[in-house]
C-alpha cells in the first residue's frame, strides 16, 4: 500500500496517497477548484494556471493540478489572492478569445464560458481582441479548426499524442506567436489526421469542432422530391439523452426514433442491421482466411483486423501501409448501409435511388470523411450523403422544438430496421469481437458460444488491449479443419493501443487470429462525435447502457436477425457472394506518413 499523507485544505484535514495532486486531495473533501487545461484522460500540463491555490509559506501561488500534495501542507483554495489571480487569468484568456458566444457552436457547452460566468469577467480590462483576422480551417470533411477560439490549453495536442499517437496537432511558435498548428501549417485535409475527432471532445471551447452538415439535411428534408433516410449507430442511442436532459447512461432509442420521424425523415432505420450484416460478411471472410491458411496452406494475411472504424482505417493507411492486407475488406456498417439504401432498399420500396438522401447518425467525426471517400460510390451514387454526429442530431432535435422527454417510444422503420443484440454491442470496445464470436462459434459448432448468457466478458471493459481465446471442439463437418484449434483474439481501442498491436504484427510476433480495433478510447461510445464531456466515468455508463440494450433484445446473434436472413435470400444470396463483393467490400490505399 502506498504511503498516506495528511494536509490541510481550507481548514479540512485530508488524508491522501502520496503522489496525488492537491487538486485530487481537494476533490476528496468536495472542494471544487476550477480547471481548464486539466482533463482526466490526459497527462498533467499545468499551463492554464486557473487552478492556482495559496500554499502557506510560499510567496507565489501553487498550481493544484500539477503539484503533489505533501505532508503538512496548508492550502487555501479561495483566498483573496487566489480569487483575484483567477479573475485576472480569466480576463487574460478572454482577451485572447473571440467572444462571439451567441453564435458559437459550443454556446452553453463551453468550459471557458462557464468559468467566465463564474468569475464575472470584465472584458474591458484588457485590450481585446489581441489578434484579428483568423481564418477558420474548413478544409477537412470532418474537423473544423478555429484558432480565434483557442485558449492554448494543449488538450488537443496531448490527446493526439497520448491517446492516439498521431501527433497531427502540435505547438508551434513561441510567446505571442505560440499556437496550435499542423505540420508546416498545412490545412487539416492535407495532414496525417485520422479524423477521429478525439481532439474535438477534449477541447474545452469551440476551437475544434466537427464540420456541420445539418443545414444541408434540413434542406433535403424540406424538399418534397427527396426521400431522406437516416440510420443511427448503436452508440448514439446511449449518449443522445445527455444532450436532452437525461442522466449519463440513459437509453433513449424509442424516443430518438420518434423524434427523427417527427423531424421529417422519411425513414428511420438502424445501423445495427448493417452491423449484423458486417458480422455475416466479416465472419465468413475470417473463416475463409483460416481455411486458406490451415487447409490450403496458402499465404494469407493473419491476423485479420476489423475495419469498422474509419479513424482506425485511415491510421493504418498512413502508418502501416505495407500491412493493409490484414484489414478485413468489409466496409464499415455505415457504408454497407449506404450502399444498400440506394440499391436493395430502393428496389424494395420502389424508389428512384437518385432521389434518396442517405444520412448516417454517428458517434463519430471520421464517418464524415469516410462518407466522402471517392471509392464509396458502389451504388452508382455517393452511398452516404452525409454523416451527422450525435451532437448534431441533438442540436437538430432542439431546433425542431420537440419536447424530447415527453415523446412516446417507437420502433425503427422497416426494412433494414431490425437488429440483434450483437449489432447493438458494436458501440462498445470489444463488441464487434463478441458479436463475431457469438455467430462464428455457432456456425462452426452448431452450439452457442460457451459463455454465460452469451456474454463474452473477457473482451469487455476499458482495458487498452484485451485478449481472449476459444477452442473449437466437436465442429460441424464443414468446419472440421478447425477441430481442436485454439483461436486467439485481441481487442484494442485508442490508436496508441492499436500501434502496439500493429508493431507486433510488423515484428511477426502477433499470436492472434482476429483483432478488433477501434480508433476511440472506449470504442464508438467514446467517439469524437459524442456529447461533451466524455471521460472514463461517462464511457463506463454508456457501455453499461449498450450491454443492457443487448440483454433486452430477443435475438442476440447476428445470423438470427430475420432481416439478415431475408436480405441474403432476396438480394445478396451468399456472404462474400458477387453482390456482397460489389456493394459491401472495399479496397484500401497506401498513404504517406507525413
Amino acid at each position, binding site marked *: 500500500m502506498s504511503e498516506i499523507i495528511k494536509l490541510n485544505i481550507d481548514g479540512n484535514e485530508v488524508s491522501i496517497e502520496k503522489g496525488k495532486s492537491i487538486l485530487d486531495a481537494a476533490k476528496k473533501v468536495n472542494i471544487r477548484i476550477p480547471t481548464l487545461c486539466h482533463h482526466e484522460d490526459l497527462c498533467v500540463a499545468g*499551463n492554464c494556471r486557473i487552478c492556482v491555490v495559496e500554499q502557506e509559506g510560499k510567496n507565489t*501561488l501553487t498550481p493544484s493540478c500539477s503539484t*503533489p500534495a505533501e505532508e503538512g501542507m496548508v492550502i487555501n483554495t479561495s483566498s483573496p489572492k487566489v480569487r483575484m489571480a483567477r479573475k485576472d487569468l480569466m480576463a487574460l484568456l478572454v482577451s485572447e478569445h473571440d467572444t462571439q458566444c451567441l453564435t458559437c457552436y459550443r454556446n452553453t457547452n463551453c468550459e471557458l464560458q462557464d468559468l467566465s460566468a463564474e468569475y464575472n469577467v470584465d472584458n474591458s480590462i*484588457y485590450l481585446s481582441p489581441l489578434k484579428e483576422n483568423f481564418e477558420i480551417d474548413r478544409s477537412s470533411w470532418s474537423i473544423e479548426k478555429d484558432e480565434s477560439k483557442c485558449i492554448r490549453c494543449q488538450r488537443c495536442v496531448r490527446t493526439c499524442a497520448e491517446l492516439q499517437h498521431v501527433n497531427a496537432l502540435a505547438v508551434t511558435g513561441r*510567446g505571442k*506567436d505560440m499556437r496550435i498548428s499542423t505540420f508546416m501549417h498545412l490545412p487539416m485535409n492535407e495532414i496525417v489526421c485520422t479524423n477521429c475527432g478525439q481532439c474535438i471532445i477534449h477541447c474545452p471551447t469551440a476551437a475544434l469542432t466537427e464540420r456541420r452538415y445539418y443545414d444541408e439535411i434540413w434542406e433535403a428534408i424540406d424538399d418534397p422530391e427527396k426521400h431522406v433516410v437516416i440510420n443511427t449507430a448503436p452508440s448514439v442511442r446511449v449518449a443522445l439523452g445527455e444532450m436532452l436532459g437525461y442522466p449519463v447512461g440513459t437509453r433513449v432509442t424509442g424516443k430518438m426514433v420518434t423524434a427523427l420521424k417527427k423531424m421529417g425523415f422519411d425513414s428511420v432505420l438502424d445501423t445495427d442491421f448493417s452491423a449484423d450484416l458486417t458480422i455475416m460478411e466479416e465472419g465468413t471472410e475470417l473463416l475463409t482466411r483460416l481455411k486458406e491458411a490451415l487447409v490450403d496452406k496458402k499465404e494469407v494475411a493473419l491476423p485479420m483486423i476489423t475495419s469498422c472504424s474509419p479513424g482506425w482505417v485511415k491510421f493504418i493507411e498512413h502508418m502501416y501501409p505495407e500491412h493493409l492486407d490484414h484489414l478485413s475488406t468489409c466496409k464499415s456498417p455505415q457504408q454497407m448501409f449506404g450502399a444498400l439504401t440506394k440499391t436493395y432498399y430502393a428496389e424494395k420500396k420502389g424508389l428512384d435511388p437518385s432521389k434518396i438522401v442517405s444520412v448516417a447518425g454517428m458517434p463519430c467525426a471520421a464517418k464524415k470523411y469516410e462518407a466522402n471517400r471517392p471509392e464509396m460510390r458502389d451504388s452508382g451514387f455517393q452511398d452516404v450523403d452525409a454523416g451527422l454526429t450525435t451532437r448534431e442530431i441533438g442540436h437538430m432535435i432542439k431546433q425542431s422544438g420537440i419536447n424530447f422527454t415527453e415523446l412516446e417510444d417507437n420502433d425503427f422503420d422497416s426494412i433494414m430496421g431490425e437488429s440483434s443484440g450483437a449489432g447493438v454491442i458494436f458501440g462498445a470496445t470489444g463488441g464487434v469481437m463478441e458479436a463475431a464470436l457469438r455467430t462464428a462459434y455457432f456456425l462452426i459448432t452448431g452450439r452457442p458460444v460457451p459463455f454465460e448468457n452469451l456474454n463474452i466478458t473477457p473482451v469487455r471493459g476499458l482495458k487498452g488491449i484485451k485478449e481472449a481465446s476459444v477452442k473449437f471442439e466437436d465442429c460441424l463437418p464443414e468446419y472440421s479443419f478447425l477441430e481442436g484449434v485454439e483461436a486467439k483474439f485481441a481487442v484494442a481501442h485508442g490508436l496508441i493501443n492499436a500501434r502496439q498491436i500493429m508493431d507486433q504484427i510488423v515484428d511477426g510476433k502477433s499470436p492472434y487470429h482476429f483483432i478488433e480495433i477501434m480508433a476511440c478510447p472506449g470504442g464508438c461510445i467514446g467517439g469524437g462525435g459524442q456529447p461533451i464531456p466524455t471521460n472514463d466515468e461517462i464511457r463506463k455508463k454508456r457501455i453499461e447502457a449498450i450491454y443492457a440494450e443487448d440483454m433486452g433484445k430477443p435475438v442476440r446473434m447476428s445470423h438470427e436477425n430475420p432481416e439478415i436472413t431475408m436480405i441474403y435470400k432476396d438480394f445478396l444470396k451468399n456472404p462474400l457472394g458477387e453482390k456482397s463483393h460489389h456493394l459491401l467490400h472495399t479496397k484500401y490505399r497506401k498513404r504517406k506518413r507525413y
Partner: protein
Amino acid sequence: MSNNNLRKVDVIFSPYSVEPYDILKKVKQRKKEDVIQELIDSGLRGRGGAGFPTGLKWKFAAQQKSDQKYVICNADEGEPGTFKDRKLLVEVPRKVISGMAICAWAVGATKGFIYLRREYRYLIPELEKEIKLYDKYAKDIELDFTIEIFLGAGAYVCGEETALIESMEGKRGEPRNKPPYPIQEGYLGKPTTVNNVETLASATMVCRIGADEYKSLGTDDQHGSKLFSISGDSPKEGVHELELGMSVEDFANEFGDGDTKAVQVGGVAGFCIPRKQFKSSIIGEGNTTGGSTMIFNSTRSMYNVLHNYLDFYAEESCGQCTPCRIGTQQLLKGIEAVKAGTKPPEYLDQLSKLAETMRLTSKCGLGQSVTNSFSSIVKNFREEMIF
C-alpha cells in the same frame, strides 16, 4: 552595509596559478561530504540568476539514489546584458570544467554536458580541445566522468533549467512543472545537477582557497566575488570581477559616465534602480545575481527601455502558460496604449496589478520576474511612460 566597499578582486579570473585539475585531484582525496559542506559554508549561491545555494543543491543531488546521474553546465547565457560566461569559457575554461568534475564526483554523476548557447558555437573547437585535455587528466586520476557539448537552439527560456533539459531531450524548450526538480528527475528522468558556468568556476575557486577566505569577501548577505557584465552608457563596458555587496552609488560612480540616470541590475528579469535610490540599493539584493548591469544616462527614454524589454518578453515567453503568454502581450500593448493616449495614465496601475498576477501565477522564472523591471520602471519613471 557600508559605503565605498567597491573592491575589484581577482579570484575567478586569476590566471592558472594553480592548475585547476590539480585542485580537482586534491579534492578527490577528501571526503565528499566535507567538500559539499565547504561549499555550503562558503555561502556560494548560483550565479545564473536564481541564486540557489550551490552547496545545498549538490547535497540534495548527492542524496538521490539512482543508477545514473548527470551534471549540466548551463552555458545558455541569454539574459540581455550578460556576457560573462562567454569570457569564462574563453579565458579560464579549465576552472569551469574542473568545477563540473568536482560536482560530478561529489554528487555521483558520470556524465556531463555543457549546454552551450548557439550563438557561442564558435567556441566549440577550443572547448573540445580543453575537454580532451580533461579526459586525459580524468583518466590519470581515475575519475569516471565524461563531458559532451550540447548546442542550444536560440530560445531565451532554455536558460531555465527544466526548459533546458526538455530541449536536450529533443522536445520543445518549455519549463516543466516543479516539483519534481531536476536534482530529483532531470535529464531523461535521472537526477541532474544544473549549474551556471560561473557557479562552477567559483566552486573550483572555493575548493582552492577554502570557504573561510571566500566568505571573507562580500557582506553578511552576499558572499564571495562575482562577475558583472557591464554595458550601456559606460566608458568601462565589459566584464569586471567585483566583491559582492556594493551599493549602486559606488557602482555608478565607478562605471557610469557621470550622467547615470538608472541602472538595470540583473538583466531584463531584474530591477531598474533610479538615481534617487542609488545610495540605498545594494547590487545583488533580491537574488538577481546574474550579474547583468546596464547603465542608462539622461539621454535614454525609459519608455523605450521598457518597451524593448516587453517586446523581448512577448517574443521569448515560451507561450505555454496563460499569464506569461498573454500577460507579456498585454503589458506591451498596454504601455503603447497609454503612450498613445488611448488608455488613461491610470491604466499603468492596472498593468502593474497584472504584472503582480504574473509573478504569482506564472510557471517559471521568466513570467514571474517580468514584474521586477516593469514595476520598477513604471513606478520610478511614470512621466516618461505617459508623455
